[in-house]
Structure formats: structure tokens, C-alpha cells
């Protein structure tokens, strides 16, 4: 007997569950009968604070980051599943004191996928920045034989090694900045950042044992996750995991919805 929550709508078939700390997880997602995603989640949203000061030797950020898990202990009400014109969406609200979020997974019948996070709540004061971390383990037509590319210098460029790839302002005609491509099917997963996300993508070779960590915090003095997973391993022809990280400064225009547009292209029917 399975407790899986499976949804089949708008050319998509996917499963979901609420996690302890990574929000709503989507897993085993197929588009038009083809596997697209092994697993996607929101492992954490970190927050750091800045202090406004005119003193020259005053550090703007005096304290470190903090976070609280989005999951079973912070959810407010049930996970909602709703149809909309041309698709289906899941949403859930989370709250922890002055921090409030609504996580969204939207699936469009044209192959678009929107993992988003709406951020609101006052925080402890106005000068703070949110860093939502989305993790995607795409398996386009099988796990291996994928590659990662980014749009740079007016064209798509293959990336050989693991790394950190910030949005430079350049994008293709559809606004896409990063993509994961599959050699066999010639399909691709295209990622378009929100232009105000100040986003970056970490492209990492998938390894068992490097599952989504239960905290961004690694050892003292070490890089946090996912940077701690980045090395010099080859990406070409491998199984990849991608992390989309947004950096959203709080201002008076909140609420703000962070997260990429993702579109599946080229999968044969």
C-alpha cells in the first residue's frame, strides 16, 4: 500500500509529500509520459541582517545567518491542490514568528514548471535579506548523459566542471540563462530566473551521500551548502543536481515571489 500523493493533470504526472524541513517535495515527475524530475525541494531559506550605520569602521553585517525549517512544524493549514487555467498547482503556507512564506509548485500543460516561494512578514527589522535555496535533481530520459550549459557571450556554452554560476544579465531570446540537456533524447530543462532574484545556480555532479543536507551549515569556517558540495568534477555526460539560489532584500514592496521559471523542451511525445 502506498501513501503517495500522486497527481495527474495538464500533461504532468507527479508525486508530492510534505517534508520535515524542505517544504513540499515533488518527486518522480513525468511530462507527457517522460521522466523529467527525480526529486525537487526547497531545502532551506536562510536570512541575514544588515545594520544601517554611517560609521566607517562599522561592519554592515554583525551577525551570522539563521533559518528555520519549512515543513511539518511550521506549516499553517493543509497543502492545497488547485486547478488553474492550463495547469495545476500545489501551495502551502509556513510561518515562524516574523517570517512567513507560501511555497508554490505550478505545473503548466505547455511544459512549464514553477517552483516558487512568496515571502512576506516583517522580519525582526527592515534591513534583512532572504536566500531561498531550491534543489532540483532532473532526470531527463534517464539519470546519466546530461550536461549543463549557460547562456554567455551571446550563445549557449557548455560547462565542463562543477561550479557556481551567477546570473550576469545575459539570457537567450526566451529569457533562459541555464539549462540541463540530455544527450540521448536531445531534450532540455531551461531555467529562467526572476530578474529581481539576483539568482545563481550551483551545478553539481550527483553522488549518493550528497543528498540534500538538513541544514545549510557545514563545519565552522567552511563553506555552507551547496557551495560545500562544489568541487572540480566533470559534469559532461553525468547525472547532475542543480541548486537555484535567490537573494531577496526586504523592502517595502513585499510580498515578493522568488524562484525560477523552468520549461521542459524537446521531449518526444
Amino acid at each position, binding site marked *: 500500500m*502506498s*501513501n*503517495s500523493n500522486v497527481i495527474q493533470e495538464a500533461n504532468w504526472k507527479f508525486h508530492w*509529500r510534505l517534508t*520535515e*524541513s524542505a517544504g513540499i517535495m515533488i518527486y*518522480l515527475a513525468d511530462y507527457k509520459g517522460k521522466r523529467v524530475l*527525480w526529486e525537487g525541494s526547497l531545502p532551506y531559506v536562510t536570512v541575514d541582517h544588515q545594520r544601517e550605520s554611517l560609521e566607517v569602521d562599522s561592519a554592515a553585517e554583525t*551577525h*551570522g*545567518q*539563521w*533559518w*528555520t525549517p519549512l515543513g511539518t512544524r511550521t506549516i499553517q493549514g493543509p497543502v492545497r491542490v488547485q486547478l488553474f487555467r492550463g495547469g495545476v498547482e500545489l501551495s502551502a503556507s509556513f510561518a515562524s*514568528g*516574523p*517570517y512567513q512564506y507560501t511555497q508554490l509548485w505550478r505545473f503548466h500543460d505547455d511544459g512549464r514548471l514553477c517552483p516558487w516561494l512568496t515571502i512576506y512578514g*516583517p522580519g*525582526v*527589522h527592515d534591513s534583512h535579506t532572504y536566500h531561498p535555496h531550491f534543489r532540483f535533481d532532473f*532526470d531527463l530520459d*534517464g*539519470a*546519466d*548523459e546530461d550536461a549543463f550549459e*549557460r547562456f554567455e557571450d551571446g*550563445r*549557449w556554452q*557548455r560547462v*565542463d*566542471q*562543477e*561550479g*557556481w554560476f551567477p546570473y550576469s544579465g545575459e539570457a537567450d531570446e526566451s529569457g533562459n540563462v541555464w539549462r540541463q*540537456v540530455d*544527450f540521448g533524447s*536531445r*531534450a*532540455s530543462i531551461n531555467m529562467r530566473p526572476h530578474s529581481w532574484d539576483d539568482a545563481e545556480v550551483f551545478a553539481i555532479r550527483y553522488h549518493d551521500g*550528497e*543528498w540534500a*543536507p*538538513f*541544514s545549510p*551549515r*557545514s*563545519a*565552522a569556517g*567552511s*563553506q555552507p551548502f551547496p*557551495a*560545500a*558540495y*562544489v*568541487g*572540480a568534477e566533470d559534469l*559532461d*555526460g553525468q*547525472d547532475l543536481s542543480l541548486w537555484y539560489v535567490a537573494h531577496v532584500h526586504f523592502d517595502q514592496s513585499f510580498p515578493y515571489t522568488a524562484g525560477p521559471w523552468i520549461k521542459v523542451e*524537446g521531449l518526444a511525445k
Partner: protein
Amino acid sequence: MATSKSVAKGAKGKAKAKAPAKPAKANGNGKAPPAKARKSADVEFADPALFDPLTPGETADALRTLIEDRRVSSMAKVGRYRVICTEPLVVKPPHWMAGHRLARVVAYDYAADRAVDACVDLDAGVVAHLELNKGQPMLSRDEEAIAISVAMSDDRVRGKLELGDTAQSVMHYWGRSPNELAYARRSAAVIFGRATGHASLIAVVDLIDQQVTQVVPAELW
């Protein structure tokens, strides 16, 4: 999971990313697939039931299996640890554990000041993967409750709370500077304020010694 290997290589990660990229093939994905067979095609036939939440019995089974493992015998013997969470884990083919019912158990060992991240194979009844490292997993619910209790018992905190202030939330916190105790020690930040209003006070609690190390008005955080 922070393996020593992955943490060590992380220090150079961002610099590596700056390496110039080479142009993609004309169609962007035109590299011919290797001649070898596609070994991972069976990810398409994964069993969704493996992702199901653990039953109470599976959770108990996973914890029993972990603390009976000799590699964590010192942790079990001293008994100063907190189980952070226990969740299902699904490993992809062609890994030998693919298709097995797995539980991921994350604990924090206060006696050794280390994180324990284990994968328990519930089908085989063994700890199939174990990492012991200096990472800091999220706070357990127990630790959140302890942080509130410690903060509420502190005279400096109580003296600054206003009528109606309560603990709004507990954050997993780590310091920015090595001069701060929370830089290297497991810590929580308790946010106080009105139930429906803004934050008023923040107390940083050292969870190892269970003492308040900082009390900061929220507007000065």
C-alpha cells in the same frame, strides 16, 4: 551530508566556477551519447512507495538499528544526543540500495560535538551509510523547546521583556565572526515579541552549555 571530502573541496568551489566555458555544440545538446548502454534508464521505473513517509514502526526500527551500530556506540553509551529527524530516503539505480526501503536518520551528538547522518537499510536491518562530521543539522523540536526555556530563565532576558512578549520562534543560528561563541558552537536564537506583532528581543542560546550568550534588542540585530 557534509563528508570531509566535500567540505574540503568546497573551499575552492567558487574560484573553479570562474573558469571560461567552452561553446556548446550548435544545437546545444549535440554531443553523441557514449557507446555504453544507458545504465540509468530504470530511474523511470522507480517505486513511488519508497518515498512514502516512514511509519512509526519504521522510524523506531531505524533508530534502534543506528544506536546498535558499533560506530556510534560511544554516542549511545554517553546518551547526550538529539535525534533531529528521520525521513525516507530513496537511492537511484544503479546503486545497490536502489529499490530498498531506506531511512535517513540525522542526530546531533553533544558529547562529541558532531553530527551523525546515517542511512539505514530497513530491508536489511543495517546502517548502510554513516557520516560523522562537524556539520550542524537543523534544530530538533526538543532543542527549540530547550532554547526557549533557557532564554526565559535568564534574568537579562526577563528584565528586557515587555508585558505580552512571548517567544515567537526559534532559529538555528551561527555566528559570523570567530569571536562569537555561536561561530563554532551549536546555538539557537530565540525571537521574542507580541504574538501578532513585531519582534522585540533576541536571545542567543548556547545549546551545549545551555546558557544565554547574547541579548540584543530586535531593532539592533
